């Protein structure tokens, strides 16, 4: 467990939570990234720009960190590229079908004590741990 980073995890997590609260206070919406992104793909009148702006904020931070610190945040892929792309398709499909992702269900929904979100979070966590175990057995 020597790679455990509890302090930065707690600080970063608190920032994510603060962003979710701020978004509810300002826009009255759940800060669910898959939902925000899906609305960019299927634009409705007057409903596009704020979504694109939200995503632009997500994209901009590590670029700003790069220019400020001269270093990019670490990015170490574990599996081959094709598996990451296949994972991407499943992430998009599953998030739409299930009505949310790690942020919408796992943080915002659970914080509202939504049973749907708590169940969804338990399911995707359990399946993700099982699939990771399977990939280890397969030697990927």
């Amino acid at each position: 467990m020597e790679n455990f980073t509890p302090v930065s995890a707690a600080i970063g997590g608190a920032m994510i939570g603060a962003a979710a609260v701020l978004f509810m206070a300002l826009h009255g919406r759940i800060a669910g990234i898959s939902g925000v992104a899906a609305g960019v793909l299927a634009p409705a009148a007057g409903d596009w720009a704020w979504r694109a702006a939200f995503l632009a904020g997500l994209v901009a931070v590590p670029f700003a960190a790069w220019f400020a610190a001269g270093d990019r945040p670490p990015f170490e892929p574990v599996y081959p590229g094709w598996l990451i792309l296949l994972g991407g398709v499943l992430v998009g499909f599953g998030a739409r079908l299930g009505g949310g992702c790690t942020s919408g269900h796992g943080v915002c929904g659970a914080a509202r004590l939504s049973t749907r979100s708590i169940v969804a979070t338990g399911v995707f966590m359990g399946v993700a741990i099982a699939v990771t175990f399977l990939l280890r057995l397969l030697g990927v």
Partner: protein
Amino acid sequence: MKNIAAFAVGLLFGLGLVVSQMTNPAKIIAFLDIAGNWDPSLAVVMAAALGVSFLGYRVVLRRGKPLLEDAFHIPAKTLIDRPLLVGAGVFGAGWAMAGLCPGPGFSSIASGGLLSLGFIAAMAAGMKARDFVKL
């Protein structure tokens, strides 16, 4: 104003992801790989985010409406149905394969380059595909 506010919220959200290293697939998979060198950091990130949003929502939702819109947009569904369960399962499988979920996909472009952009394109395709599947 709505757009500037959304950009600022995106910045704060992205900063949280970068600070907690959730934009690194190895960090996500180290949490999911309980048979390996287990790294509980992701659980701490979720717990901290949950704690702050649980308390913050209690204050914010007591107001009549949000500052920039006319009403709160809170999901009304309460039914545990098949789409929820299948969707969460498929999402979990994809999350494990990629080591990325939607937020970190966007916040890793600076570091992951084409791999992150490929993940986002694949995710967009998956989102579109959902519209063509009857479930």
